[in-house]
């Protein structure tokens, strides 16, 4: 069997299977939590959190060694990283609330300073006798090579727990990210739910450290939600989609990575996320780039055709090159710029429409109507046939086909 296929079918060894399942669960949890962050426009807070884990890892290692234990204990390192991640998060909130710093500057400051201090600790550890083989560098970019069974279990269980908490809290979190004021009015404690959300971000980060590494873990929290955004406008659907994209990337990425020696897990998972993103960005049916470019172009041509016809109706000269080419291609103008019969007819029609609108605004003074007179909305979309007939009676005997 091909090694990738083997890994995907969970038959490449017990450890890799466990890691793949764990990565899938972690991806799902990260995708879901990330969606809440994304809806709150705070995606990059996760970047501060993840970089702030590094000093915690270093301190936990030093502490565990000082207490006579094995510095590499994954649970211990995770606990340490959670403490400094929380501290970093608190500092971001404090600085952007209490000082004139904007949140992005606070994030940048915390992530760089904590990371820098973490590197200082790593170099200290390298100088310690117990630190020679610490392998803490693995936490920067993740490494599953030679992973212990117990570590794989920790990741799988951690991923499962995070996913379970997301399922439990999905309703309040959706509400708070979608409309915090409404959530507050409905009796939810917005501040607490926000904290729970950031707590989950932290949990996902900490569990994912060993697997994806702290530089890249944010990708799992950012890319799937952005990808989901291209496929839906509904926040609950976005959460599900994003979780699915995260799960697929985590599972497939770690499987591919397990199939060959020099395919690092973190980058492969991130690139799997990115592949899904790129496809969605380009080809999603409504919000994708191709679809919106086509739509925008159509709209632009529609505007120019309408404006051109109105100019013909008023006998005004047309200078805009695009308008001219739209009219010529539509058969409304001859190549020498003289209107064709069709052009005159359509111009008269557009003009007639304008006059109908003027009357309509006079007799129907509904509030909603004022904004509908945007030059492109057809009469029939707003008024019934009877109402249009009434408008036409006001306009008098000139028929729509009449020349102007």
């Amino acid at each position, binding site marked *: 069997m091909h090694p990738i296929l083997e890994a995907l079918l969970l038959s490449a060894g017990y450890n890799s299977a466990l890691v793949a399942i764990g990565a899938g669960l972690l991806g799902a949890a990260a995708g879901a939590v990330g969606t809440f962050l994304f809806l709150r426009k705070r995606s990059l807070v996760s970047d501060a959190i993840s970089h702030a884990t590094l000093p915690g890892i270093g301190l936990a290692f030093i502490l565990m060694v000082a207490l006579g234990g094995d510095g590499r204990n994954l649970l211990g390192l995770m606990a340490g990283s959670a403490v400094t991640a929380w501290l970093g998060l608190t500092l971001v909130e404090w600085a952007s609330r209490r000082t004139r710093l904007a949140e992005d500057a606070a994030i940048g400051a915390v992530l*760089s300073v904590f990371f820098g201090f973490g590197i200082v600790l790593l170099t200290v550890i390298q100088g310690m006798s117990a630190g020679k083989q610490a392998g803490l560098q693995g936490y920067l970019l993740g490494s599953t090579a030679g992973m212990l069974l117990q570590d794989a279990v920790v990741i799988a269980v951690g991923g499962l727990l995070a996913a379970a908490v997301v399922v439990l809290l999905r309703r309040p979190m959706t509400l708070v990210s979608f409309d915090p004021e409404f959530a507050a009015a409905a009796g939810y404690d917005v501040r607490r739910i926000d904290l729970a959300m950031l707590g989950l971000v932290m949990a996902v980060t900490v569990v994912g450290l060993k697997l994806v590494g702290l530089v890249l873990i944010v990708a799992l929290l950012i890319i799937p939600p952005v990808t989901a955004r291209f496929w839906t406008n509904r926040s609950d659907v976005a959460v599900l989609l994003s979780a699915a994209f995260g799960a697929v990337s985590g599972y497939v990425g770690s499987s591919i990575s397990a199939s060959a020696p020099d395919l*690092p897990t973190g980058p492969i998972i991130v690139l799997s996320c990115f592949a899904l993103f790129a496809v969605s960005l380009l080809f999603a049916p409504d919000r994708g780039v191709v679809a919106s470019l086509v739509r925008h172009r159509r709209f632009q041509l529609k505007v120019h055709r309408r404006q051109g016809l109105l100019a013909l109706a008023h006998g005004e000269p047309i200078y805009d090159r695009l308008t001219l080419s739209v009219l010529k291609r539509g058969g409304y103008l001859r190549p020498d710029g003289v209107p064709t019969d069709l052009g005159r007819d359509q111009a008269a029609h557009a003009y007639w429409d304008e006059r109908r609108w003027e009357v309509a605004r006079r007799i129907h003074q509904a509030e909603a109507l004022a904004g509908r007179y945007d030059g492109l909305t057809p009469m029939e979309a707003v008024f019934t046939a009877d109402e249009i007939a009434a408008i036409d009676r006001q306009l008098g005997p000139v028929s729509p086909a009449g020349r102007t």
Partner: protein
Amino acid sequence: MGADFVQLSLTPILIGVLAAVACAIPGNFLILRRQALIGDAISHVVLPGIVLAFLVTGSLGTWPVLAGAAGAAVVAALMIEAIKRLGRIEPGAAMGVTFTSLFALGVLILEQSDTSTVHLDVEHALYGNLESLIWLDATGWESLIDPTALTLMPPELIRMAAVTLLVGALAAVFWRPLKISTFDEGFATAVGIPTRGLGFALVIVSALAAVAAFDAVGSIIVIAMFVCPPAAARMMTDSLERQVGWSIVFAALSAFLGYVIAGYGLTWFGIRAAVSGAGMIATVSGVILALACLFGPHRSRIGAPSAS
């Protein structure tokens, strides 16, 4: 401080100071434009740029590295704009998507290719190797006036000095339009300042500073210096001119103190370990920022009082 200071510490400190200043100057405008994390994004994408440059040219010489890194920074800036505009995604998320993917690509290519013959690895990219930029041919302070020894200074120093000067000169020349368009983009456009081009140019100059600094000192200093000294300076004054001045002072101070503490400080505490100079510089800049946040005379937001 004698001969071995000049030999071992003078050039790393100078390079650190120059790199810090080169990043802090554009950083002032980035934080006022709510683009503080552009520095973060740029410093991440430098890695794939360098790796690709190495694969293409087979060398880690100055020019391939600079070109590759600068190219990657431009690609990243364009990609962020494209995702923002075409995908209608908010800037933070667009940045997050871009820099993580490009960084992942860089790591992957690095692992896949044979770079064992050269010094190119992720750790080096992250925290550089300031300590290795020593001036072996110096025999003491008098070497500063010895033409032969001067020509044998680490080339990073000359390069960094040139880039810092260039960044400073550009900031001085384009000061007025930069200030106007940062404060009031609509007015700037109305008086004929090409605001979009200027915004892009700011990102490119930041990238230039980042790339040059990165080459010498790694990406931690780069990220920290884009944000911390300008942010601390923001707490010290309400004038943009003075803010930039303060940020230069803070950047230089961080680099100097950081390097000295990393190199000598720990021995005062009896710890015999050489710690990362880059990491310590970032840490010191964080301490300065924390102090400014707590005690800076202009630390709190004044904000616009409501009408009347």
